[in-house]
């Protein structure tokens, strides 16, 4: 079991929260990237990572968590998980159009590896008063 502490910035109302976890092996070599979920650009970026399976898994979990946080169908191509460089954490980049559609002024995502699985938590913030 993994525990994590996440201090969020006060002031901005939370509009939604979502979480997802998947086993990395389900995105392993020999499993073609889902074009329904990953754009060609994102798939190309993730395929070039040192651990592509973990990259695809993390991105998928982020998109699922975002969908759950939004509470409505979203276009998974309108958001991408961008890996961080040199050990830095990655980030979930959401297109302005999608952010407006789901009513989010800011989207925060945290991802981590838990054994053989990736976990993603996404929180949507509204405008700070």
């Amino acid at each position, binding site marked *: 079991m993994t525990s994590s502490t996440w201090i969020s910035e006060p002031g901005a109302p939370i509009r939604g929260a979502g979480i997802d976890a*998947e086993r990395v092996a*389900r995105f392993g070599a020999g499993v073609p990237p*889902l*074009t*329904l*979920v990953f754009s060609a650009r994102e798939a190309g970026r993730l395929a070039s990572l040192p651990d592509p399976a973990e990259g695809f898994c993390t991105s*998928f979990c982020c998109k*699922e968590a975002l*969908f759950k946080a939004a509470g409505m*169908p*979203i*276009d*998974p191509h309108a958001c991408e998980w961008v890996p961080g460089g040199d050990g830095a954490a990655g980030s979930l980049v959401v297109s302005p159009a999608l952010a407006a559609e789901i009513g989010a002024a800011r989207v925060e995502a945290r991802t981590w590896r838990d054994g053989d699985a990736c976990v993603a938590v996404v929180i949507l913030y509204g405008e700070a008063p």
Partner: protein
Amino acid sequence: MPDIRPEVAQEIRDMVFDFFAAECDKDRGELSESTNIIQDLEGDSLMFLSLLERVRKRYGIGVELKTLARHLMKKPASTLGQVVELSVAIVRHGDDIVNVDL
């Protein structure tokens, strides 16, 4: 909208059943139209998406995931029979599926 030939509908049904039998390590004979994907097969969204991807590629359908999700909110697909019905509808209607009253 053009109708689906019976043999194509059967091919889609076989694809759905074969897929879940393989993914869930079940004998094809154990599955039926009423088999619940989550309760009986421990299926999940990733599995469902993988199947839809296969249907899209097999029949050259360009329907988007957001469109499918909107349809599923109106008409959920919990059993294998419902997944077959959805898959046939995808092949028949493509992106217009969100406007179809199944």
